């Protein structure tokens, strides 16, 4: 048994929440109306732009992949379902899977930036120390998300070895999948998370494809040794080409070198 031959991840299109948060980061908190705050983030719809992005993703998929897929998964959240419906994939029967929902932001969910900064100053500081392990109050860390993703990856491994699978999901979830599927170090993950290069971002409707098929020779490999990442509505924002996936194993000296790179603050002087 192995993972599917191809695993294609698609982030949902721009949502009401994306728009509200983007405006809020510039100091405009007007989108956080009482009605908006009285709704859970699982019910956010796509914006008009988000719908256009989803149609661009549909276009890219139809031109660059052999359709249909053998299995279709979608997060249980509305913005992912709306995106999946707009992809209009042939013969699609979508499994709505709870484990593919977005990371739970707990008490920080549906909250304008100024309120986050004033109410959760210490929490935000902790996030800067280590964004991988950091957990919002009553929410989930990326490490927590990784745990639930392993459940769905086990299912894929068991049921879809020789097949091709698509999942319409969320940004944080795709970051957690990248960590697991590329066997990144936590440091690499944090560097990418902090990167300001648009080509390192997972934009709305970004498509990330993992493949066990060698992109040139067509040879079927045992692992996902290749991936490509495409922003279908503006390919200048993404790397687009096939990249090798280097899942590293660590030697003893790698381990010691990593430990040595951290300054020791407390020591036993006896």
């Amino acid at each position, binding site marked *: 048994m192995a993972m599917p031959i191809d695993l294609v991840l698609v982030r949902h299109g721009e949502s009401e929440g994306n728009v509200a948060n983007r405006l809020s980061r510039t100091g405009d908190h007007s989108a956080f109306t009482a009605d908006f705050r009285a709704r859970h983030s699982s019910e956010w719809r796509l914006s008009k732009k988000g719908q256009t992005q989803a149609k661009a993703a549909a276009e890219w998929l139809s031109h660059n992949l052999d359709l249909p897929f053998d299995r279709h998964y979608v997060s249980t959240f509305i913005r992912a379902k709306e995106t999946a419906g707009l992809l209009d994939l042939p013969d*699609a*029967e*979508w499994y709505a899977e709870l484990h593919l929902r977005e990371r*739970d932001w707990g*008490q920080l969910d549906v909250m304008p930036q100024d309120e986050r900064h004033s109410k959760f100053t210490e929490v935000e500081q902790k996030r800067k120390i280590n964004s991988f392990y950091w957990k919002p109050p009553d*929410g989930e860390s990326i490490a927590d998300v990784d745990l639930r993703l392993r459940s769905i990856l086990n299912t894929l491994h068991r049921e879809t070895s020789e097949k091709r699978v698509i999942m319409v999901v969320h940004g944080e979830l795709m970051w957690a999948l990248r960590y697991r599927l590329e066997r990144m170090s936590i440091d690499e993950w944090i560097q990418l998370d902090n990167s300001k290069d648009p080509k390192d971002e997972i934009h709305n409707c970004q498509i990330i494809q993992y493949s066990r098929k060698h992109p040139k020779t067509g040879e079927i490999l045992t692992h996902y040794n290749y991936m490509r990442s495409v922003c279908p509505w503006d390919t200048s924002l993404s790397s687009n080409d096939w990249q090798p996936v280097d899942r590293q194993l660590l030697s003893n000296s790698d381990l010691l070198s990593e430990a040595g790179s951290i300054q020791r603050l407390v020591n036993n002087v006896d």
Partner: protein
Amino acid sequence: MHILPTRLTLARHGQTHGNVFMRANKKGEATNLSEEEIRAIRATHSMDERLTDTGIWQVQQIRPWLVAHIGLSYDWYATSALPRAIETAIALDIDSDWLVAEDLRERDHGLFDRMSPAEIAQQYPEFARRKALTRYFTANPGGEGLPNVDLRTQLWLHGVTSHPNDWVLAVSHYETISVMFKRYTNMSHSRYHDSQESKDGLLDIPNASIIDLVRFEDPDDPFGGTTPFFGWYRKVTPWDKQSVAECRWQPISPPFYSNSELKRLIR
């Protein structure tokens, strides 16, 4: 390879002192419990609850119903590791080994253990506000959210089922059973929330009730064809004659949607 059992029967433990106390506490009613008993309950964690005499009588009614309607030919008998579930398993008087599974324990209520909804609303208004938006995703401070219960029960079921045709009987708890029921009947989280808010009965699982899910094409024919997912369920409270009389198989919709069904969900 699908590894869901062909039959999953979930049994809730019988009534405990904690159930009596919490039921009265929720409604603000007096109980038959003495002051001393109430103090003793407040001083313990809900994980340590034992069955009342009524609870023992309730669970004794489960076995005859199982014998009459299903038979005792399960491949796996499992119980939550909490005392009230183990007492329930003992009362079933099954001549077989039991798996004792931590993953079938009740949801951890964290700081809210032993607190009534009114006390929670008064002391934790921000939590009450978020819970009103979504019961399913709002985690208890210092405790578990229901998605975590979903994760551990699903991993447990995948781990225990060694053969796709296995039958599994599991003794567990209200919130844990309700989450498994939600997953395997493909209930949306908004439906779960609405049902809890409206008390429409879908999520009523009284003490010593059974939820029986099957992957048989014909729910009454275990030797016929099977489906990849649970296609039927029935719910019954064997100590309640009306519930027994009204018990019927209910169909479960398949867990997937076409493009047009997705679009209809949005509308």
